[in-house]
């Protein structure tokens, strides 16, 4: 593709905006719904300009009513539209939990495929941006525990755009988690036009030999920092960005941990009943005899996500990741 205008690098927020714009243009069934997404362009400006371009009929400011508009979007999706619904912060999704758990993810199996719910739920998530309380939750495992739901969590602009397009094209409900810390922390060249990143496939961010670090979302940056520091101590880390949390890329996990024999899982969620435990279970099932050290988890804690005055204590840091890696190496 040739273009006389040089494309500016995109942030994660910009890449999602471009994906939404491309899909609104491409597919007239696509509509956006959410609080403050129209005139205001979303509280993170992810939908900026879209209402002006595509009109109030397709970029819709909804009442403050998570259960109501997620429920309505289920009815729309079953009736031929492709709603992309923004939940302003993941911590505000809980009123819609019932609609997702009892309807969105079950309608296909309840009706043996007669009805389906091709819906995308977008939600900024995670701590580390000094946001008010409840705005910082990382409760992805609530949704990976929903049979029928797919959960994706891009960490960079390229994946964000490709996964968003894949999510909108997907025939089933997809929760699209947007790490707030990464919204504007990285800019990169992103291809113009439509492309997809396959849901269910992770990515090797860094090749390494000694230890595998498995992570996603905002924790990829923390893990990469740790890996860089460790490389100076001649410890070679392989960093895996899962990108999709349901279904998890089991083959990528198995191939990496069988190669290195040591694994550290890094997540910011509460450790109990978390995605890290699912990764652990995959390692146990696929690669138990390859392990030279116990699989380590670096997590948030089983405390509520704290007020931001305390969030630096809560969140995994490169130092905590390095410590876990060293322990695995020295085991």
């Amino acid at each position, binding site marked *: 593709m040739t273009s006389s205008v040089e494309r500016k690098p995109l942030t994660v927020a910009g890449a999602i905006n471009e994906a939404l714009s491309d899909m609104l243009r491409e597919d007239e069934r696509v*509509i956006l719904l959410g609080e403050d997404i129209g005139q205001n362009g979303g509280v993170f400006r992810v939908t900026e300009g879209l209402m002006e371009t595509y009109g109030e*009929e397709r970029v819709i400011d*909804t*009442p403050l*009513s998570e*259960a*109501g*508009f*997620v*429920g*309505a*979007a*289920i*009815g*729309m*999706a*079953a*009736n*031929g*539209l492709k709603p992309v619904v923004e939940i302003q912060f993941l911590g505000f999704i809980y*009123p819609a939990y*019932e*609609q997702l758990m*009892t*309807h969105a993810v079950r*309608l*296909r*199996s*309840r*009706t*043996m*495929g*007669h*009805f*389906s719910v091709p819906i995308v739920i977008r939600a900024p998530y995670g701590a580390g941006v000094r946001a008010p309380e409840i705005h910082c939750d990382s409760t992805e495992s609530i949704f990976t525990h929903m*049979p*029928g739901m*797919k959960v994706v969590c891009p960490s960079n602009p390229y994946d964000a755009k490709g996964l968003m397009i894949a999510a909108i094209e997907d*025939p*089933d409900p997809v929760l699209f988690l947007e790490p707030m810390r990464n919204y504007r922390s990285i800019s990169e060249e992103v291809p113009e036009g439509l492309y997809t990143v396959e849901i*269910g496939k992770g990515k090797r961010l860094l090749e390494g030999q000694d230890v595998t670090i498995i992570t996603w979302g905002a924790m990829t940056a923390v893990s990469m920092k740790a890996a860089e520091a460790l490389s100076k101590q001649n410890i070679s880390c392989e960093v895996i960005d899962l990108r999709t949390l349901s*279904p*998890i890329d*089991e083959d990528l996990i198995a191939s990496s941990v069988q190669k290195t024999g040591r694994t550290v899982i890094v997540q910011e969620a509460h450790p109990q009943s978390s995605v890290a435990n699912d990764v652990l279970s995959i390692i146990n099932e696929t690669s138990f005899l390859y392990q030279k050290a116990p699989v380590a988890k670096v997590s948030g804690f089983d405390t509520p996500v704290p007020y931001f005055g305390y969030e630096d204590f809560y969140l995994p840091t490169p130092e905590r990741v390095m410590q876990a890696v060293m322990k695995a190496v020295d085991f």
Partner: protein
Amino acid sequence: MTMILGAERGRTMEEAYPIQQLLDPEGKWANEELKPLLTEERTKSFFENMVRIRTFDRKAISLQRQGRIGTYAPFEGQEASQVGSAMSLSKEDWLFPTYRDHGATMTFGHSLCNVLLFWNGRNEGNIPPEGLKIFPPGIPIATQIPHAAGAAFAEKKKGTKNAAIAFFGDGATSEGDFHEGLNFASVFQSPVIFFCQNNQYAISVPQNKQMKTKTIAQKGLAYDIPSVRVDGNDVFAVYHHVTEALERARSGNGPTLIEAVTWRYGAHTTADDPSKYRNQQESQVRRDRFDPITRIENCLKANGWDEENWMFGIKQKAVEEIDQAVEEMERFPPPNPAVLFDHVYKNPVPSLVRQKEYLLDVLGADNS
């Protein structure tokens, strides 16, 4: 025009939303202006459909007692509400029922066999006949209300004249989803009918413990939704007001809330005993004085439309149709374990493929 937008000063809400009736409990026509609605064909069709679903309901209870289906939610007493509303719909409209609205779905054209399959623990029963847009019954209370608002929104967006109807009970109006669904439909003027069958009990809790308000219709006022309270045991009144609401929806004038005041004679489901929470004498009194089928039968008699052969014929026809559906349900192929896995996602995910293989292997079943 019976649309009521609000109470006037000094009137109670019950006065502001009077119960609309076209056929009184004795079967006498009560509204000269709407007399043209009273035709032999329509009256007979109402009667036939009500007899048909009552026969089904009684048969289903007996099947449950014999262990031939699972727990069952009966609707006897609510036939006028369900038949009157379902018969107002066009084939292209959407119907969002609860678990007590299969009287309406069967009248709308749902397969009797499929309804029985649903009550016998088979999701095959949720598949509506070709071309009919019937959602599976909403189980968590009120959750289907926003779906109807959304499906109606989509119809409006597509530029059709189709509408959606959501069924729910009195208890549902305490749930957030009721209010969020009504507000959504009101804001976007979605072509949807919110059809509340107020049978005055939510399992065991009577209306006066469920809400302080004497009417449910008045709850539409807060959303600027035209609302009406009808005698839910008067099939003509239900039919007329749902038809009027549908016309309003189709002509771009948004949602309507209808409160059909009725009564369920029996239990919430076959798993509970209503005598534990209410005086069943009252059910008997209501049956004696306000039964919806007796009312329409009286109307047929008063007009000389009650030919004995015809009356006998339709009862016989209902029994035969239902017996045939029971037979079909019982001949239905046994559950195939693969079904558990095949419709979770459109495209199977690796973990489910493995789990399916595992289960089929454990069961010694053929993986096909």
